[in-house]
């Protein structure tokens, strides 16, 4: 009986994980969005605005999580990002921001060396996820 309950619980947990994964919201990436706002200011804000419709040297990051790469109509993307054909899931952002931008997307205009602090990266992505 108890084995059955355990089995159900394990099954639910697995399904929940799969659902989170499918929605691009891995629990493992859960960070502190408030702390992530500070990380955004120190790492991103000179080139990107969190406000909708406000492009700087880089495009607005309002609603970035879930957005198709290179999809803001009035921003002049590099060909490399226009052709990237990916969706900015939290997982993708984690991959992209943890390495030099030109390594992740050769030909991009973005000059970013990557964020190697795992906690700051999680916090940042949590903030980006919350900013929509």
């Amino acid at each position, binding site marked *: 009986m108890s084995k059955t309950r355990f089995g159900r619980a394990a099954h639910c947990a697995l399904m929940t994980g799969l659902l989170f994964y499918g929605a691009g919201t891995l629990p493992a990436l859960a960070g502190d969005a408030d702390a992530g706002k500070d990380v955004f200011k120190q790492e991103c804000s000179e080139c990107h605005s969190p406000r909708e419709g406000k492009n*700087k040297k880089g495009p607005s990051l309002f609603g970035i999580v879930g957005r198709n790469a290179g999809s803001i109509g009035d921003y002049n993307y590099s060909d490399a990002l226009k052709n990237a054909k990916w969706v900015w899931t939290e997982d993708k952002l984690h991959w992209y921001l943890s390495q030099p931008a030109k390594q992740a997307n050769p030909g991009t205009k973005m000059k970013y060396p990557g964020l190697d602090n795992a906690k700051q990266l999680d916090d940042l992505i949590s903030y980006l996820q919350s900013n929509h």
Partner: protein
Amino acid sequence: MSSSLPLRLRRAAHAPWLLLVALLMFASNSAHAIPAYARQTGSACADCHAGAYGPALTPYGMRFKLNGYTDTDGQGTKIPLAAQITGSRNVPERGESTTQLSEADVYLAGRISDHLGGFVKVVTENIGDDHYNTKLSNLDLRFVAKDLKIAGKETTVGVAINNSPGFDDPIAALPYASSLGPPAVSGTLLNLSSAHTLYNRVIGGSVYALYDNDYYGEIGTYNTMPTSMIDHLGYNPASDPGRLSDTGYFRFAYMKDLKRQFFSAGVVALTTKRQLPRNAPSDDITDLGYDLTYQFLGNREHIVQVSYVNILEQRDYGSTPVVGGIAAKSQGNARDQTLSVTYTFKQSYALQVAHLISTGSQDPVRYPPFGKPDSTANMISLYWTPFGKDDSFTSLANLKIAGTWYRYTRFNGASMNIFGAPVGALITNAKDLDAFTLSASVAF
């Protein structure tokens, strides 16, 4: 003839008023907010300037300058025009207070193409009694090649044409770039407050490179313009920097942007032969200096910027005039030091404290009445810039209200009776040169 002897003698005659002019020059460090750049890039003023108003640059502002002012948000061509109007109330320790519209500036500033950009500032200044003088102020035109690879490292190479050696410096701690230098009796060629300064009165070019984001190098040369040209550009021919020849400018700096912090260490050199007046024998002059800067940026809530500049000038004079049976020395030196600390809160409220020292070798002929050119001053500035941030009323324009104190503790090598007035005459002490200025500038 000594390069600066005529000025010393004039200064001895009517020094306080000339000094007030020098003081106002020293006070001019409130300019350089360029909203045209904000419109071009979509960035806020505060992205490039910690206090949302120049001239001190953040690391991002340094990169923008290095890239020849060409960065853009990619959303069409913007009109590369901006303006600044400044009104001020000056309250000197001695003399009449004035309240006036002190300066109106027009900037032609921005990109022409991905590789070509610039900065040109034209100033109309109130020179008293509602008389105005218009002059060409700073000039910095650049061609830049970005995203080059040398030995596998990212490299930027540029060519700059400008009218003040060091104005184009990315770190912007050197006097011509920071608009901050000690009020000087002697003073180095790289100090904008020196007599016969080169500031905005020469024309030259340099080639510069930034290698691997951290190593900056620049080599250039400068020449003076004809005195008629200096006059036409709005400067008094009496401020002629003289005829320059064999002039070389060299700069190397290591700069490290750690996002939350920034630091740099650099060296600078300027060597020239100068004839002043232009038919006089030439003085051999070499400036050698170093500068150190540190910035704590954090999450931009509390920003601290510290800079220290030390420039030593060696002079071999072309002549040794004799006054009262005493011959001037054939060699001399001058040293200018500037230490500045600025704290900025919420990119809006700032306190800047600067300690400024100008010293030089003793020479009873060249530096009457005491034979010492030493001066020491402090500047304390408190200012508020309500706009120019991403989340403010406007990020593309700004207002700056500043209260600035100038405090002198030494001039002409003395604290008391600095002009050596005889008994019974009006005595001027160093502190009589103190002044307070309240100013409001709007840039749009």
